[in-house]
């Protein structure tokens, strides 16, 4: 197919543009005077031109939107996400990306029906539009107007489709489609991206320039991504919230190949809620140098044994990955598809009030906690993205699952939100963790944990156990894995390992000890989250040799260096 078009093909161009949102750090110019506040508008609303425009358009839609033979909406919400982002990347000592952009999106949800049964289904889960980056009430309302119209029409179709789909199931849903929630007014300060990019660019250039010291380093890059996000929310229940956050992310990435072709990579990263929580240039350079050094060590390290079953000690850093993936994802109250009688979609769907961890561990999620051990937690927030106040939720008490993290979509036995409905820009909300904190009644020091590992080895008659320093990749692939010899406790780096059956069952049955070294792991995903966990020891875990095929070594050597630096 070929096409000649004056613009980009047909109407899709505007939709493409709705994704193509970016700005060269233009501060919202043209601040327009806010329109006069109506008698009912709160101070919170009238103090912010965006919230005021959102409130006005929402009120107009709620009171007037009505199609023949379709009920009027019983609920409308508007969420505006403002993202100011800077990112840069350097490869082999030179910058190759350097950009800042500013964009706003809106997401409109219109619900038809009632709390018991409504249209939040398929196309009825909302409409998305691009929003002006100027604080211009009329232009913003115009975008809200078209999105609301689209969302209402989609909702009316969705409700009909949903009713038809539900007719094939006999059982009545024992919970509502949408949870009631009190009206909340909470206006937080605006988050801002305020920094000088120059030293940061120099920092990543300098880090990635370390390739010069080792001709076998095949790629070395460093990058950063800083963003400030402000979420504006209003709904027809008179909730109005505004909350902002900043996330600063810094990373270095290196790859090399062992003589047999095995690809070895490292990608340490730092995620922080404030600039001061990021490493200093000196620290980052030292850490990068250490990474390059470990790549060299990995290249020369022996392959892991073919089979191993026995004790494995996970550092606090590695443990946060496990708790994030295995506990964090499974304690979310995400409703399964209609007709599916399971409580949730996760591994813990049928584990309510049963044991999922050893009894010495408890887990809670507390978005109201702002810092831990002097570090800002990026999973903190006052109100979630459905305008519900955040609360500390005990999730696992003494090993027993006692709660799910809930947004406003109820599941069996959990009719209400506990302030965990979260969403990235333009996305639909979904339950998510905020600050997931793993607490242990045991608190062994790292040395004591290592001793315990050695004891188990001796009991089993094994020459060594394993210590995982850091995980990476899509599964739980060990990036730095050491043999810990029972004889004298010395450690030896190995490569080429994967875990087998490292799952929620192992977490429940084989976890025997935890450390006194809780670590804050900030994680920047669709929404910022934090996991805090100590080191953990499994007494019985399988470690195998990877069966991934080795890659070819480079066909010809890298270019000789010209510059002296």
């Amino acid at each position, binding site marked *: 197919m070929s096409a000649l078009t004056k613009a980009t093909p047909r109407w899709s161009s505007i939709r493409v543009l709705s994704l193509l949102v970016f700005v060269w750090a233009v501060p919202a110019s043209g601040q327009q005077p806010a329109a006069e506040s109506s008698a009912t508008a709160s101070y919170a609303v009238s103090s912010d031109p965006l919230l005021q425009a959102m409130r006005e358009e929402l009120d107009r839609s709620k009171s007037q939107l009505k199609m023949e033979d379709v009920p009027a909406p019983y609920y409308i919400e508007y969420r505006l996400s403002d993202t100011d*982002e800077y990112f840069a990347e350097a490869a082999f000592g030179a910058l190759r990306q350097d950009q800042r952009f500013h964009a706003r999106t809106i997401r409109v949800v219109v619900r038809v029906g009632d709390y018991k049964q409504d249209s939040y289904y398929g196309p009825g889960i909302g409409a998305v539009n691009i929003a002006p980056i100027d604080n211009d009430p009329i232009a913003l309302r115009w975008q809200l107007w078209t999105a609301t119209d689209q969302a209402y029409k989609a909702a009316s179709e969705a409700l009909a489709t949903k009713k038809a789909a539900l007719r094939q199931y006999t059982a009545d849903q024992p919970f509502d489609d949408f949870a009631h929630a009190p009206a909340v007014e909470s206006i937080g300060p605006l988050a801002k991206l305020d920094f000088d990019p120059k030293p940061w660019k120099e920092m990543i250039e300098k880090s990635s320039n370390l390739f010069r010291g080792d001709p076998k380093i095949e790629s070395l890059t460093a990058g950063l991504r800083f963003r400030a996000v402000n979420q504006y929310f209003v709904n027809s229940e008179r909730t109005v919230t505004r909350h902002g956050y900043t996330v600063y992310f810094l990373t270095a990435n290196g790859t090399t190949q062992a003589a047999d072709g095995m690809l070895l990579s490292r990608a340490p990263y730092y995620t922080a809620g404030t600039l001061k929580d990021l490493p200093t240039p000196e620290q980052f350079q030292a850490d990068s140098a250490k990474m390059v050094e470990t790549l060299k060590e990995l290249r020369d390290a022996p392959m892991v044994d073919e089979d191993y079953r026995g004790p494995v000690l996970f550092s606090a850093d590695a443990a946060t990955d496990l708790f994030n993936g295995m506990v964090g994802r499974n304690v979310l109250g995400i409703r399964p598809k209609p007709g599916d009688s399971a409580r949730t979609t996760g591994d813990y769907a049928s584990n309510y009030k049963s044991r999922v961890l050893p009894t010495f561990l408890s887990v809670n999620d507390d978005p109201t906690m702002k810092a831990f051990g002097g570090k800002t937690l990026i999973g903190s927030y006052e109100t979630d993205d459905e305008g519900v106040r955040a609360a500390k939720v005990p999730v696992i008490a003494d090993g027993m699952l006692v709660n799910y993290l809930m947004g406003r979509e109820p599941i069996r036995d959990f009719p209400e939100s506990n302030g965990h409905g979260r969403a990235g820009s333009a996305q639909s909300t979904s339950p998510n963790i905020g600050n997931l904190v793993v607490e242990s009644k045991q608190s062994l020091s790292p040395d004591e944990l290592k001793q315990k590992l050695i004891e188990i080895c001796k009991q089993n008659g094994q020459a060594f156990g394993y210590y995982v320093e850091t995980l990476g990749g899509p599964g739980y692939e060990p990036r730095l894995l050491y043999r810990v010899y029972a004889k004298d406790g010395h450690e030896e780096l190995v490569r080429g390992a994967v875990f087998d059956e490292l799952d929620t069952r192992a977490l429940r049955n084989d976890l025997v000890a935890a450390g006194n070294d809780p670590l804050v792991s900030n994680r920047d995903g669709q929404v910022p989250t934090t996991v805090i966990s100590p080191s953990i020891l499994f007494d019985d875990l399988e470690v195998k040799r990877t069966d991934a095929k080795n890659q070819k070594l480079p066909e010809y050597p890298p*270019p000789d260096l010209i*510059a002296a630096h």
Partner: protein
Amino acid sequence: MNRSFLRLIIGSVLCLCGVPLAVLSSPPRPDVLLETMQRELARATTSLAKADPAPYFLTYAVTDTNALTIAGLNGSLVASTTVHGRQADVMMRVGSSALDNTHSQSRPSGITTGTLPLQDDADSIARVLWQLTDREYEQASGAFLKVKTNQAVQSEEEDKSPDFSQESSENHIDESRPAIALSQKIWEDRIRRVSGGFLKYRDVYTSLVLLQGGTSHSYLATSEGTALAQPAAMFRLVIEAETRADDGTNLLRVESYQAASPDQLPSEPELVAAVNKIAADLHALRNAPAAEPYAGPALLSGRAAAVFFHEVLGHRLEGHRQRDEREGQTFTKKVNQQVLPTFLTVVDDPTMHEMNGVKLAGYYQFDDEGVPAQRVVAVENGILKNFLMSRMPITNFSHSNGHGRRQPGLMPTGRQGNLIVTSTKTVKDPELRQKFIEEIKRQGKPYGLYFEDIQGGFTLTARAQPQAFQVIPVMVWRVYADGRPDELVRGVDIVGTPLLSLNNIILTGDTLQVFNGVCGAESGQVPVAAVAPAMLFSEIEVQKREKGTQRPPLLPPPGFENATADATAKSGTATQAKP
């Protein structure tokens, strides 16, 4: 905002600014960039010559781009950004020119793309090129083995031409920098003001004013010794707006302008006038009757005829389509036969800078394979003479004629540049309308159709699909035989088969009109121009366009809450057809 979203954004920017630009940062020093490319290319060529299978051809192409995007709607900006980027494409051919890894469906194996450092850091640039080359070798050598296996097991191909033509090497280093004076702030304010013009119109539901463009420098180094450095600059301003008729038909109007520098774009009053014209057209279209299926005389304006020829004829003249066995190959075996009325001649001339004072978007000096641009007489007095050739040979056409084009990141194919249709059977334009009415009467039809503006279109050239074409006419008028005023209709689609339609042209006007645009095909988006006079067809067939099902918005737009429906009258009156 998550990272994949971000990549999508960046991807869109680079892709939409297919023909890029240089605004703010200092231009690269070709002595470092080009020399590093050449040095690393020579090293790769020597090193890989020992490999088995070995490459016989290697190209490094680097595009250094300074792109700008400013978008606004309803008086506010939605985006304003500049991006400096350097994209490197490593293109490799393994095997021999008779048969290589790019053969047939394996063509994408010939290219690997990556991002180069923004500064002239020779060590860093060399490292990235080395990485990309090593990756490309692995891909190309693997693909070549598959190609050889396929050749052994599949039936013989009809066109046994080699995979790559021999061309002489070129050396052309243009270090000139287009001096672009652009104030982002001034354009931001201008776009705010121009886009704010749509706020007056209650039935323009969505609109956008977009400035995209910038400058670029392209560098090409090949293992055959070609070395090119060429600057380019292009800025496009697009205004688009949409409404919906009561029956659910979506109605879109787009106006676009293209220039080598922002100061050559229309002035602000002209842009404001365009906004008002678009709004008036949409209002008129909203209230116009829906088209009925019809076959009969039609008059195409010069611009409409130009798009028609680009789609219906131009794409079928692209060389590579003549050997791809999945293609319909409408013209493959028609060389030296009559394919058009004898009064029409079609050339594609990328060397032409402008026509009647209008700059042509399809101008270039060298194509993307480093071959000098050439004027190609494709159809002479109705007789098919030539195809638009890249370095992919076809039967009887063994060389490129400088039409190998591509968007960075994709393999080149034969593409149009400036397609120019000229006629020897002309009348003055006003007379053409008279002849049109005579033809309507002669055929005993109540009316004929005048196509004033065509949105663009798409052409299906593959065998698996019907050999149909479709263009999207926007402003179409019924011209009545009995002298009633012309009547705008909406929702018209032209249908039909190419050969038949082309031979229904009976007469043309005497003024060439230019359509500048961006053409998308397998090798990506490239800027093109199409030029043609107005044309009278004895018959064109139209069908009703598929319409949407959604009604217009239920509530009036913000600011119109208290206005009555009559306020739409503000939108102005329909423009008159003036063929």
